[in-house]
């Protein structure tokens, strides 16, 4: 007798927990061939606000953790993902080989960013030789809570926008790919078992056009990454809304996620802090 499988309920990931949408809504996710795969939670404005609260709450701890500690945790995420290669490849669908390549590239991307945790300050910080008897030092610091609209690429694209935001100490609220949100929720299961404190990454699934504007206008969000917004009008209105509290905005881009990522995605959500101190007996 064939066994009936137990299917997973895909929920949101907020503050380290997996709640359903408070709205009680969901939407069907289909395969490339149009077949039903699962229902994903359709997050509401209230869910988005809850996620921002969770991200803000996690910020002092995460930004205050040592860079070494944050690097270890990102590396741990890579380790956990490696252990679930097959599961992610299956969930991504398409050709098995291509899917595995995507997963491998995602793991390597995490390792790349893990190493940056304790190096970005050496590359982007400076001792400034001011003309006077002062010690003057500039160091990069995280911007705060960043809202990220993830690109369509469900895993590599997602990790390529989230890892650079959190490795430097920011916390984030992510709107997953609307047509392909399931890998994001499975990734949340990886995050939840990688010593990443709850609330550092919060993942919403649902309608991009419904969620992004609330995050763009939210006064407790400090940065906005619109990478995944394909609709130019939506991107424009989000950027305009973001101006209200001068969020740092990353405009939508078409990116080749397999290319060398560089450091721009980290530096975009970093502030530079300069400290002066007199020198003298």
């Amino acid at each position, binding site marked *: 007798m064939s066994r009936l499988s137990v299917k997973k309920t895909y929920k949101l990931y907020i503050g380290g927990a997996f709640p359903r949408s408070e709205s009680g809504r969901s939407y069907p996710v289909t395969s490339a061939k149009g077949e039903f795969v699962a229902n994903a939670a359709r997050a509401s404005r209230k869910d988005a606000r809850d996620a921002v609260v969770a991200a803000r709450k996690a910020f002092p701890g995460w930004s205050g953790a040592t860079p070494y500690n944050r690097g270890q945790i990102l590396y741990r995420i890579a380790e956990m993902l490696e252990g679930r290669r097959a599961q992610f490849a299956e969930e991504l669908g398409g050709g098995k080989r291509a899917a595995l390549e995507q997963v491998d590239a995602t793991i390597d991307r995490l390792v790349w960013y893990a*190493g940056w945790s304790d190096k970005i300050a050496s590359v982007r910080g400076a001792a400034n030789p001011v003309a006077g008897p002062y010690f003057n030092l500039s160091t990069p610091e995280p911007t705060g809570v960043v809202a990220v609209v993830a690109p369509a690429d469900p895993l590599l694209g997602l990790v390529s926008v989230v890892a650079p935001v959190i490795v430097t100490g920011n916390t984030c609220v992510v709107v997953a790919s609307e047509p392909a949100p399931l890998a994001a929720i499975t990734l949340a299961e990886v995050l939840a078992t990688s010593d990443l404190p709850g609330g550092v990454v919060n993942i919403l699934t649902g309608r991009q056009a419904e969620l992004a504007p609330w995050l763009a206008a939210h006064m407790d969000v400090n940065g906005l990454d619109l990478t995944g917004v394909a609709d130019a009008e939506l991107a424009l209105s989000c950027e305009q809304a973001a101006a209200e509290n001068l969020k740092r905005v990353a405009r939508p881009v078409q990116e080749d996620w397999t290319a060398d990522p560089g450091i721009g995605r980290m530096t975009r959500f970093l502030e530079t802090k300069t400290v002066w101190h007199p020198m003298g007996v």
Partner: protein
Amino acid sequence: MFEYAPAPESRDVVDLKSSYGLFIDGEFVDGSGPSFKTVNPATEETLAEVATASAEDVDRAVRAARKAFDGWSALPGAERAKYLFRIARLIQERARELAVLESLDNGKPIRESRDVDVPLVAAHFFYYAGWADKLEYAGFGTKPLGVAGQVIPWNFPLLMLAWKIAPALACGNTVVLKPAETTPLTALLFAEICRQADLPPGVVNIVTGAGETGAAVVAHPDIDKVAFTGSTEVGRLIARAVAGTGKKLTLELGGKAANIVFDDAALDQAVEGIVNGIFFNQGHVCCAGSRLLVQESVAEELLAALKRRLGTLRLGDPLDKNTDIGAINSAEQLAKIRRLSDLGEAEGAERWSPACELPEQGYWFPPTLFTGVAQSHSIAREEIFGPVLSVLTFRTPAEAVEKANNTPYGLSAGVWTEKGSRILWMADKLRAGVVWANTFNKFDPTSPFGGYKESGYGREGGLAGLEAYLDV
């Protein structure tokens, strides 16, 4: 004073073999030189027989490293990174084993090997792993040098190995490393870790032996880079030996650091810092704060507090978790400490040690301080490399700087004051590679370490540490 019941860490975690070979091209092989014994300095018990690498063995190791270089340097940085991350994780996994073995072979307290040495070793590999695919951001180019010959001392056997091997491999070099003859065991355990990490054969080669083996590594014509940590005396010989060759050289040598206490310092904290500065690792630390410069107005008060604190230090079994001061690493080093201390008395300084019972077996020296020390005294000029502190006084900041810099060395210095501007003024004037303010003996893989003047050249750690292993 409290009585402490013994709290020994178990040795069971370490699986000692009766004899050890060399690690060449991914295999453990016999050495062709006569084998030697490595002993537990706390008991004089022989721990194992270790092979001596002859010049031919060194040549084999260099050839293995050369053969491995093409493949290793051609690997994408991200792949080299993953090997180094693996090594970092394996070190974390086998941390207690490494710590116990280090304390057995070196004599340092388990509290230090467990809480300082081994965590720093793992962190160092973790840190440089991350650089392997980011070299283009460091500003030194991305071209490795080739085969690095590395000779390390006995005071931090595994940590010095990490400082040498991690950046070398991250930059794409292969290495031949010679550990000190009195402390080869953790390096050989590290070789086993390289195998567990599936590191390609020949990327790391470990040749054991004494000075002759080290000299053979340095002199080998197919070595592109020499890195040495040890005495200034040997550093000079090496600098002379590589003169006129194409070899790149970095040296991390001796020190005679001043630990300067101003009258506004938090004295209790300063006392802890002074103790850490000179009695950490039995004073076998090149950057040890071996000269205490204390402002005259607080000298009496500080010395009284310092003596009180020394009376509470616990000397004994390195594997006991309550031990503060372990064994001197070798009979030879003990003789040197005794000779210089006797000289201190003969030259007119006043010697003081707390009541301190020394074990009958093994090599031991009590925590010792000298007062009435003049700058001309041998104990104020020569590196003792033991638990011996020379106390001098000063009146003004300018005098403190003058005295602190009055040494051929320039590795480190300490400043204790509650005034931030004075810390920075002092840091500006001190001719030393590392200046600790209101702390001492702090190390981190992200922070460059190395000396001015006769304390050597080149830096280890941080972004700066990459320069030594790239063709700049």
